């Protein structure tokens, strides 16, 4: 290879174009720089240079088509061929030098110096050398260009030279001198009119044994048996079969060993399928191997020392290099700094605690178990129950008293296995040695396995809740005082006729009662003295109700077919009496005029009648004649409107009367079911209508149904609205009391069934959180009922007291109850003709 270089160099310089010169120079520079950095990029660099070459050829050398073709073929060849190609270039020498130091050492001196420089790294002298080479190239390039002699080509060349070469054209490197016309052109045998360059025989020079051998194995390293059935073993370069060498039979072999004195030094080359005579050199190697010596004959086992650095004259003046100290030696290390900062950060964050006292191991600990150590809590950790310590009876040598006597033994044996107190029979042995094996062992293990298998160990979460704690905590009645407990005052009616209704004056001073003898009486609430009465003489008084307006004193009472508006004028102060009279009488003047107009039209719902002067003087101020028997009166909170319910008046059962205008209207054209009770909402313009089973809430302004409450009762008897307006209670003839929370649902919030007979009346206290129910069983039940302003909290209902005292007469008990407006006192009326106040 070394011998070849001058020739190729010359070829290269003569054939390379001047155009490629600059680019070449640049590419070299680049290459060198790259080579010094990275050897691995070698093949890539080579590839790119070669490609540039291709373009070059296309552009310039039109005549050398054939060459081009060949070149094309070359590029398609394997890497090995390319290597051959590359080797031609002198730059590649350097590359090879880089890659193999051993080679560079054996090079010529001049080359060695350059190589050394290369080893040291990038060097200016190297660049100079390259430049000189490049100049050399430039000189040579011009000759072929002129020889081509085409004017167009010349123009091209000039153009190329005068303009700045494009950067993309770099690397028109030259690796092969094949195109440079070193060979002899001859006519191609295959293509008519084309030329093929024929080269001289070429001595490869790198002396591969196999390459010079005639019969080389061309099939590669494959099992030779594959060719057993074939006459040839592979193909030659020319595509001809390499025939299998003739192989003699066993007799030939034998004869050969007999005839040929050298046959014992032959060996079969399996690859070539023939006997090969071993050379003396080879035999010598074999012999040496037999003697366990170095197979190389020239190896001197006892070579004398070559003193390179020691010995006389080789002493080193300065044992250290004068190379400048590397920067890393005196610049603080960034990497170390980072590491230290990491630790500092960890200390600051507390992940690393400096001077932490070492964790002391306990001096004494259980070797075999970790029971004494704390366990990390785990759901499935279930420690086995502790076994009781063995007892004396379990001893192999128990005291005599533990042993069974006959009777005990018989008893023990008679018992069921599960019933036995001891599951074994205590026995006495003289020594532990005489104790027999435990005969129940297998059975016990089997049962234990069964236990484990049939009862997997899972944690059973047992709900350990005291049922008492689930019962809502109700405050004791003692904490909810005051509430009525005993009968304090009795309002005695002359004959014991049933008192159907009572009512307490809004100021809490008078009690009005209506009894079946047709008399409405007014009583002093405090001492039970009857102070006023109106004998209406119209049959039983069905209902009395004081007007809630405190500035007036109006009592509404109903008898069959009539509603009376009464006022105890003598009992009240003149101003109150005057207000009352004005309110009740103003409409008489206008109505007397308007009745004449009204009469021709349809029959009015009710007729407002002016009583006689005598009656008026006694306090009977207005009479309203209505259809049916109004059994219930309820006042609007402002005291101008009141409503009556007459069950037997068909579609005119509910009437709303206005006192100031003496007008009556029937709010419902047709009522669903028979209306039992009605009530005004305490704050809104709403109207509650209770039929036998349902309570309906109407909006009087919007004239629409707002809500229907499903009571679930068979027959509603009474109803009252909580003063807050969001709750109501209804009592029924089927012994139940229902509390509705209007915000909650249309079903009862609570249904209380404490009475044993039908409820007659239910009522809320206006100021205290109390409500009461009266029943035919002669009792009055007092309940505590707090309604919280917090909407999330349900009302609290606590039964407080059963008031007994009224007698049952004809199956009727307490008929009506009313609360005192400001005190926790209750007034009740009974079928036994008694009215009582309870305090």
């Amino acid at each position, binding site marked *: 290879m070394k011998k070849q270089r001058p020739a190729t160099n010359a070829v290269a310089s003569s054939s390379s174009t001047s155009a490629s010169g600059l680019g070449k120079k640049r590419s070299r520079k680049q290459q060198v720089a790259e080579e010094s950095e990275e050897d691995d990029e070698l093949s890539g660099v080579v590839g790119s240079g070669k490609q540039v070459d291709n373009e070059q050829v296309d552009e310039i050398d039109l005549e050398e088509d054939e060459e081009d073709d060949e070149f094309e073929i070359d590029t398609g060849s394997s890497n090995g061929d390319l290597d051959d190609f590359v080797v031609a270039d002198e730059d590649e020498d350097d590359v090879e030098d880089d890659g193999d130091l051993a080679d560079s050492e054996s090079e010529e001196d001049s080359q060695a110096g350059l190589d050394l420089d290369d080893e040291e790294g990038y060097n200016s002298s190297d660049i100079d050398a390259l430049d000189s080479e490049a100049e050399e190239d430039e000189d040579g390039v011009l000759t072929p260009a002129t020889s081509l002699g085409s004017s167009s080509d010349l123009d091209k060349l000039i153009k190329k030279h005068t303009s700045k070469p494009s950067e993309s054209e770099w690397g028109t490197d030259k690796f092969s001198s094949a195109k440079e016309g070193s060979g002899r052109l001859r006519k191609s045998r295959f293509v008519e009119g084309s030329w093929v360059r024929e080269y001289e025989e070429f001595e490869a020079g790198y002396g591969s044994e196999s390459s010079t051998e005639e019969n080389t194995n061309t099939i590669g390293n494959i099992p030779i048996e594959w060719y057993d059935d074939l006459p040839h073993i592979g193909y030659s370069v020319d595509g001809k079969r390499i025939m299998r060498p003739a192989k003699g039979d066993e007799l030939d072999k034998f004869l050969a060993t007999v005839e040929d004195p050298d046959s014992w030094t032959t060996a079969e080359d399996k690859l070539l399928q023939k006997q090969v005579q071993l050379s003396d050199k080879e035999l010598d190697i074999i012999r040496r191997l037999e003697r366990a010596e170095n197979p190389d004959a020239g190896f001197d086992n006892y070579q004398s020392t070559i003193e390179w650095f020691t010995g006389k004259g080789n002493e080193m003046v300065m044992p250290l290099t004068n190379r400048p100290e590397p920067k890393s030696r005196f610049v603080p290390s960034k990497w170390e700094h980072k590491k230290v900062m990491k630790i500092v950060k960890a200390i600051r964050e507390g992940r690393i605690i400096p001077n932490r006292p070492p964790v002391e191991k306990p001096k004494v600990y259980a070797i075999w178990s970790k029971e004494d150590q704390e366990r990390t809590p785990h759901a499935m950790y279930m420690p086995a129950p502790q076994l009781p310590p063995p007892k004396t009876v379990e001893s192999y040598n128990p005291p005599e008293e533990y042993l069974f006597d006959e009777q005990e033994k018989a008893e023990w044996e008679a018992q069921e296995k599960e019933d036995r107190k001891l599951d074994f029979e205590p026995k006495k042995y003289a020594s532990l040695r005489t104790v027999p094996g435990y005969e129940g062992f297998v059975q016990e293990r089997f049962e234990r396995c069964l236990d484990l298998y049939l009862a997997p160990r899972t944690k059973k979460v047992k709900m350990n809740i005291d049922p008492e704690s689930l019962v809502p905590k109700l405050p004791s009645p003692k904490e909810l005082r*005051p509430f009525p407990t005993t009968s*304090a005052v009795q309002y005695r009616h002359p004959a014991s006729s049933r008192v159907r209704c009572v009512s307490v004056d809004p100021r809490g001073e008078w009690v009005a009662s209506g009894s079946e003898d047709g008399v409405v009486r007014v009583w002093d609430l*405090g001492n039970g*003295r009857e102070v006023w009465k109106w004998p209406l003489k119209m049959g039983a008084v069905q209902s009395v109700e004081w007007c809630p307006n405190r500035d007036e004193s109006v009592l509404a009472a109903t008898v069959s077919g009539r509603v009376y508006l009464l006022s105890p004028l*003598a009992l009240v*102060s003149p101003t109150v009496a005057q207000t009352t009279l004005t309110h009740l009488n103003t409409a008489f003047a206008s109505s007397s005029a308007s009745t004449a107009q009204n009469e021709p039209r349809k029959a009015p719902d009710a007729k407002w009648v002016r009583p006689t002067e005598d009656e008026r*003087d006694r306090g009977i101020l207005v009479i309203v004649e209505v259809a049916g028997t109004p059994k219930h009166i309820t006042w609007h909170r402002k005291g101008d409107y009141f409503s009556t319910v007459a069950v037997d008046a068909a579609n005119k059962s509910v009437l709303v009367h206005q006192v100031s205008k003496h007008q009556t209207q029937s709010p419902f054209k047709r009522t669903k079911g028979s209306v039992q009770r009605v009530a005004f909402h305490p704050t809104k313009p709403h109207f509650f209508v209770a039929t036998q089973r349902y309570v309906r809430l109407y909006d009087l302004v919007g004239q629409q149904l707002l809500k229907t409450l499903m009571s679930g009762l068979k027959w509603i008897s009474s109803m009252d609205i909580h003063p807050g307006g969001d709750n109501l209670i209804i009592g029924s003839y089927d012994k139940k009391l229902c509390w509705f929370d209007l915000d909650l649902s249309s079903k009862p919030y609570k249904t209380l069934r404490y009475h044993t007979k039908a409820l007659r009346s239910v009522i809320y206290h206006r100021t205290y959180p109390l409500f009461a129910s009266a029943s035919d069983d002669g009792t009055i039940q007092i309940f505590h009922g707090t309604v919280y302003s917090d909407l999330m909290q349900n009302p609290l209902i606590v039964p407080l007291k059963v008031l007994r005292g009224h007698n049952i007469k004809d199956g009727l008990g307490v008929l009506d109850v009313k609360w005192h407006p400001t005190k926790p006192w209750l007034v009740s009326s009974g079928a036994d003709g008694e009215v009582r106040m309870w305090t």
Partner: protein
Amino acid sequence: MDTSTAATPASSSTDIQLPINLFTRNPSHTIPSSTYLLPSSWRRFQLSSLINKVLNPNAPIPFDFIVDGELLRGSLEAYVKNRRGGDMESTLHVEYVESLLPPKEQGTYPQDDWVSGVSIKRPGFILLSSYLSHAKIIPLTHPTSTASDDAQPPSITLPLPTRLGSTCTSWLSPHPSHEAYDPSAPILVGAGGVDRQTHIFSIPSDRLVDLASHADPSAGCKEIMTLHLHTGPVSSLSPSLDYSKVLTSSWDGLLGVFKLPTREEPLEERHEVGPEPGSYLTGVDRRSKKRRLNVKDATATETPNGEQANGLPAANSGGYRKSPEMVLRGHNGRIGGSIWDKEQAGTVWSAGWDGSVRGWDVESGGCEVVKQGPQERAALCIDQMAGTRSLVTGHMDRVVCLWDARESASVISLTLPTSAATPSVTAHPTSSFTLATASYSGHLQIWDVRSPKQALFSVKKQPRKDNKIVGGGTGERLLSVDWDGEVMIAGGEDGEVGVWSARGE
């Protein structure tokens, strides 16, 4: 106690000895204070004779013994077993008080309608007000024990110009023992009515001296003043200490102070306010209305003295209408009762249904003390104890409360449980411990505040046999009681005034 045998205390040697500490608040009866070991079987009599032995008085004094606010009724052993759980070792602190005799019924005075108020402040005469709308003065000398007695005792009847009834009555002139007594001045009597007015009657000064000798005792008695203020029925009236003013209270929550005619300031014979309308209807005069009211009332009660309405034309026309000198406002709701302070002139106490007891200064008209009890504890009446000035109120919810009047901040200091609502309470005129109550259950009770758990005596007034007044029920309700320390009178819904002799000291 007198009938019990004077058995020796140490009847049995096995008797348990109890440590007992005896003390009293009466300085004349003190014995050396020490703890005695007494047999547990001892009763009141043995204890009483023990103290008598120590004191050695001229005549033996019977004593009562109070343990833990309760009168000792049985033996000491029984008490310890029942109330102390058999704890025989701790010392019993026993207070002894001079024993009182139980009230003894002297007779009854049947009336024609409910007796709403009684007064015995003038010795020898019963003043009563009735729902028949009159006040009546009956001499105490002729008690009739039988209701069927036709011979009515001579009495002065002072009819009110209304048919609604009278609620309360009081003497408004000093009785002879009083320093302001003027023998020549007419005797004034007041009665409050349901008609919202207080009527003051004058009785000739010599009339009460020999009542029986007069053919018509009521002649010459007339209503001189009508006190107009209230818009509700009058609940109580009482004269001031010097009998120059009268205090009225009413359901409307107002207290009125009115001047009474005295020698220095005789009655001004003029109306200060206009008349109340007899009828609110045009063309109906007062008299016709009253006739109708009479018709109405006739169904309830038959008026025996039918001529009453016409018999006293002077009273019928009413007195001079007077307006109050001072109005005290503050109570919310009905005032149950009001009194003048018994020692401090110019101070007035009132108790209302709003549960408060208020002290007023009449001169300024200001409410000086407000003692607010529970709202629902409505007070029906009030009186003041003699010595301690503490106030006694009877309540609707079956208690009698004592209030300390000296401390303005304090509220109820003691509560006596009664069996029913107490519409009337009277303190003993001199004793600072005893008081009498009447209740709706018909019981008259004498209390010692040292024994607050139990009344000293409880007498149930036997309801009238031939009860024509009350429609239903037994009519046992008592409405009023008065007690002058010797005689106790009470009246109620059965229309009978009962007289008992009862000492409180």
